[in-house]
């Protein structure tokens, strides 16, 4: 295998393990330890994509998280993921990747026509062009933009990978394992602090991996390795590579995404793909380093133009030459460091330095190596379409306004250094008001907002010696505050070459007669001319300029473009940069997989599943389940080929004629105890509760303070100071909080305690004319006659050795009982009921039959108590006490609530007695009235009445009281139905309620 651009024996890759991979269908080789970017560059591949707007050819610009161009679609283990930075993706055997943003191929891209139409695509182009005619947007513009633009395709398959969330607490969280991260972590760890050190790259060490420095008589890289090795042995330290801290939230909580498996061909068994860490830290040390800034010049987006630090990293970490004829364009000493590395490895670079006559140790070294240096020289434009072939260069005047004669120089890459931008994102997210530091032309963190300290290059400190000194000190000082230990650590001596001042120069002027595109934002194709247009059109705020031009809005979040954009705005506006200010840094710092954010909460795990103790029995007996909040409830018990309609009708009919049993375990249950319990209930419910005797149940309605019905249910007085309250399944948690609120905050003087007992009791409702026979068989020793256990009566009994509570209450409108036993005995109870009920033709019934039974009885439930109705609307005004006060009573005097034509629950029957009425349909007077047709009410619940064998619905209807007998229309545009109906009483069956008392 020949890799034309790979050096022998240089770098940190493992040459013993060769990996094969495919890019755009073509097969290549790389080594273990490569990124996709370094492996492609080793093979001489520079063209990796097309730009967003003009579809210009794009190569590699950086070597890490700052990369704006090299975004690929990744294929791994039969899955695909978009928006992957080739510079971050580690190589594995069998990796496949494709360019995005080009169609049909990266080499021949139709969208590149945009490049030649670029005068038509200036700033705000999308806003201006695609706004009219409005009707074109969905049909023509949007599909076109989607096809042409896009940064990859999301998989529509179910993601088989697993993602985890983890909560962690620590004393010091350290973001970045460069010199400042390592030394502060080391000092803090020695003081016994609980430390988490996070590094986004696979290798620890940050700039120490590439900088030619010496710490404690070792190379920077060796020193870093030693520190990491020692930290890993300490029990109070967690070191994590491939882990990006991407968000700094309130109260010192940070979120980190750990790539557990992305570097492997396949996720290991039991391993997650990614792990999201929620870390609450006492102190946060931000040692996230800095990112090199580009200098703006003509065609500066041509493949082969890249950051000089990236070129150095490709060489020193991966043994890869980004070119064999490099041109270095710099305004500071960093470019020289890259040039020296090239020179040392047999490649002869040329340096263009915008400075006139800089002097420093680094420059002296470059000179002594015989490197060709041109001072006061700049790159005017890169030449070459899919790859740099040459550069137009010129001398530049001292005021940086005049260019000399343009010369052409042959080169195959242009390595640019426009000095360094501290990575202040995390500090800014924490709320830190950043400040502009003149000496480095960049923003640095100001006063700490939360418990955060920024160190080293992220704080604008570029001297290694100073960085180590302050970082050791900070680590020691902050950990001492927490652990009280104060262990001295000696600060190693540092040998680094002194550098000279950078040149405040960031943009090469256009030569007369040329209109080269000079890009600021490489991913979003924002050029100098776009910003000029935006300002000319009156945009002033940097936030508006950003949105109008999309500067810094791409997936790289302007890591390389922000400052140059600010420089340009401040220059045109004649303001200083700090007066322009920067746009807000928002999390995430870098794109995070949606899967990692969602974690394990997918599919069945998106919420807990609650099952009643009788669940297994239901399952064995062909129950078809339905989600009721977090509960699984039988909807009906399928017999043979029955469908839902047939099955539920059979079950409901059997309740009306024989007896049925329904699992009502899911009902909310609250135990209420204390000497003031009766008084409390009297305030909570709308009806009177002070005189309820022991051993009796009562139906109650509770309101919110705004007069709207909150919930209903029965409450039973078990003993003098002990009540058992039931709530609807859906409102159980809210009602408990509601009661606790009044007891703890509003009326703390009441001596009452409440506790949820929903999980403690299993419940079975036995309903139907033969329910008393079943009950008598269950409790042969009890008097369950109409006199012994009257309607709304309560007694305790012994169910074949199991303690049981028996309530004579009814939801179905039939003679009915509810039996509760401790949850553990629920299954036993159920089986006994089925056993003794057999001779009475007992059948279990599900929620569908339950609904049918309550609807045709006109019993209101959740669909009527929908958070918009008052007692009157539900025909419950008889339960509203006129004598006493209760929660929400005062609101019932509101004008709208007392109006004569107030809405009210009614029954609805189709005139043809055949057509089922869809729930949610509207009631109107005239089906042919012009739209919007005035709505009189809505259908809240529908069923097929088993009593009358025709459809029946409940509705909340305006002036419902006076509408009985009226003929209206039900309209459901969703189901395309218009049904003539008659309004009837909501109490369709047994209006006098004789059955429940029989």
């Amino acid at each position, binding site marked *: 295998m020949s890799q034309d651009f790979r050096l022998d024996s240089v770098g940190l890759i493992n040459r013993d393990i060769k990996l094969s991979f495919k890019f755009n269908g073509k097969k290549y080789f790389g080594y273990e330890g490569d990124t996709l970017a370094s492996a492609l560059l080793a093979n001489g591949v520079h063209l990796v994509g097309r730009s967003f707007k003009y579809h210009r050819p794009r190569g590699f610009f950086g070597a890490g998280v700052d990369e704006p161009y090299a975004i690929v679609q990744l294929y791994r283990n039969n899955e695909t993921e978009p928006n992957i930075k080739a510079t971050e993706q580690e190589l594995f055997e069998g990796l496949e990747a494709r360019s995005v943003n080009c169609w049909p191929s990266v080499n021949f891209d139709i969208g590149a026509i945009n490049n030649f139409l670029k005068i038509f695509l200036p700033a705000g182009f999308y806003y201006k062009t695609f706004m009219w005619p409005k009707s074109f947007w969905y049909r023509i513009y949007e599909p076109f933009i989607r096809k042409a633009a896009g940064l990859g395709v999301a998989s529509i398959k179910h993601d088989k990978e697993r993602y985890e969330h983890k*909560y962690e607490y620590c004393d010091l969280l350290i973001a970045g394992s460069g010199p400042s991260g390592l030394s502060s972590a080391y000092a803090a760890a020695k003081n016994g602090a609980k430390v988490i050190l996070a590094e986004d790259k696979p290798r620890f060490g940050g700039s120490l991996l590439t900088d030619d420095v010496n710490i404690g008589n070792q190379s920077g890289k060796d020193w870093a390795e030693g520190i990491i090795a020692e930290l890993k042995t300490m029990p109070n330290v967690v070191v994590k590579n491939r882990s990006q801290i991407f968000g700094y*939230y*309130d*109260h*010192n*909580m940070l979120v980190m995404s750990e790539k557990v498996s992305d570097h492997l061909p396949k996720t290991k068994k039991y391993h997650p793909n990614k792990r999201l860490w*929620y870390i*609450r830290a006492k102190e946060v040390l931000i040692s996230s380093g800095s990112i090199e800034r580009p200098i703006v010049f003509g065609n500066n987006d041509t493949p082969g133009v890249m950051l000089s630090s990236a070129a150095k990293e490709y060489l020193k970490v991966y043994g890869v030459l980004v070119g064999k004829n490099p041109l270095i364009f710099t305004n500071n000493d960093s470019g020289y460091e890259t040039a020296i590395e090239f020179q040392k490895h047999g490649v002869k670079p040329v340096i263009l330095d915008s400075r006139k006559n800089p002097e420093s140790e680094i420059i002296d070294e470059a000179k002594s190596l015989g490197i060709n240096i041109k001072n006061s020289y700049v790159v005017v434009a890169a030449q070459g379409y899919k790859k740099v072939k040459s550069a137009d260069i010129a001398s530049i005047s001292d005021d940086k306004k005049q260019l000399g004669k343009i010369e052409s120089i042959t080169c195959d890459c242009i390595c640019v250094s426009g000095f360094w931008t501290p990575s202040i994102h995390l500090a800014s997210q924490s*709320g830190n008001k950043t400040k502009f530091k003149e000496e480095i032309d960049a923003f640095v963190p100001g006063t700490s907002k939360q418990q955060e300290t920024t160190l080293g290059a992220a704080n604008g400190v570029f001297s290694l010696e100073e960085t180590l000194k302050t970082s050791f000190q900070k680590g020691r000082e902050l950990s001492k505050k927490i652990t009280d230990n104060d262990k001295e650590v000696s600060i190693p001596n540092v040998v680094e070459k002194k550098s000279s001042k950078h040149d405040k120069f960031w943009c090469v002027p256009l030569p007369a007669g040329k209109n080269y595109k000079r890009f600021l934002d490489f991913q979003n194709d924002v050029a100098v001319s776009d910003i000029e247009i935006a300002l000319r059109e009156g945009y002033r705020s940097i936030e508006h300029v950003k949105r109008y031009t999309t500067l810094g809005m791409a997936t790289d979040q302007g890591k390389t473009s922000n400052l140059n954009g600010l420089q340009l705005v401040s220059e045109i506006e004649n303001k200083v940069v700090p007066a322009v200010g920067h746009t807000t840094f928002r999390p995430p710092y870098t794109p995070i997989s949606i899967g990692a954010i969602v974690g394990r909460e997918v599919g069945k795990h998106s919420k807990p599943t609650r099952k009643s103790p009788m669940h297994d029995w239901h399952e064995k007996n062909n129950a078809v389940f339905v989600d009721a909040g977090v509960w699984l409830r039988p909807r009906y018990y399928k017999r043979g080929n029955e469908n839902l309609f047939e099955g539920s009708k059979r079950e409901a009919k059997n309740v009306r004629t024989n007896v049925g049993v329904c699992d009502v375990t899911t009902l909310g249950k609250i135990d209420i105890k204390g000497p003031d319990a009766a008084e409390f209930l009297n*305030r909570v419910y709308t009806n009177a509760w002070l005189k309820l005797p022991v051993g009796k149940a009562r139906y109650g309605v509770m309101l919110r*303070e*705004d007069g709207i019905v909150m919930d209903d249910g029965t409450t039973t007085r078990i003993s003098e100071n002990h009540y058992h309250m039931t709530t609807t399944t859906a409102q159980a948690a809210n009602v408990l*909080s509601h009661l*606790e*609120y009044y007891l*703890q*905050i*509003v009326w*703390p003087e009441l001596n009452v305690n409440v506790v949820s007992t929903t999980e403690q009791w299993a419940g079975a409702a036995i309903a139907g004319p033969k329910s008393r026979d079943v009950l008598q068989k269950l409790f042969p020793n009890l008097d369950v006659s109409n006199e012994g256990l009257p309607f709304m009566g309560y007694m305790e009994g012994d169910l074949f050795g199991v303690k049981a509570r028996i309530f004579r209450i009814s939801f179905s409108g039939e003679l009915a009982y509810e039996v509760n036993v401790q949850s553990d005995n629920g299954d036993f109870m159920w089986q006994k009921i089925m056993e003794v009920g057999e001779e009475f033709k007992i059948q279990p019934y599900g929620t569908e039959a339950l609904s049918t039974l309550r609807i045709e009885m006109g019993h209101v439930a959740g669909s009527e108590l929908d958070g918009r109705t008052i007692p009157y609307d539900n025909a419950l005004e008889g339960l509203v006490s006129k004598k*006493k*006060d209760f929660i929400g009573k*005062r*609101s019932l*005097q509101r004008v709208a609530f007392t109006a004569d034509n107030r809405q009210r629950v009614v029954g609805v029957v189709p005139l043809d007695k055949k057509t089922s009425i869809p729930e949610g349909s509207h009631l109107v007077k005239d089906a042919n009235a012009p739209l919007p047709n005035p709505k009189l009410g809505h259908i809240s619940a529908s069923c097929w009445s088993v009593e009358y064998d025709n459809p029946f619905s409940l509705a909340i209807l305006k002036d419902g009281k006076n509408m009985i007998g009226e003929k209206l229309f039900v309209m459901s545009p969703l189901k395309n139905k218009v049904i003539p109906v008659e309004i009837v009483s909501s109490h369709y069956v047994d209006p006098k309620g004789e059955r429940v008392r029989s």
Partner: protein
Amino acid sequence: MLYIKCPHCGMRPQIEFSYGGDASVKRPELNKEISDQEWDDFVYNRKSLRGKHLELWQHISGCRQWIKVERDTATHEIFKTFKADEEVA
């Protein structure tokens, strides 16, 4: 995500709590004649302050106690937390 000191349980993450609104609102006494305006102020009208605000939270996934939290609505800084019956100093 906020980090709230429950006076009964200690420092706990926000996900254990539910928000209960302005703690300075006092429910009118039962059986007392009050004007529509007073009642509206109690049920609906809230100041929506920017800055220091006393609010109710319930430690719903913990001790289930309602507590008072003095919090800055703009910066999210929490100054102090109180038990339901504790006087706010």
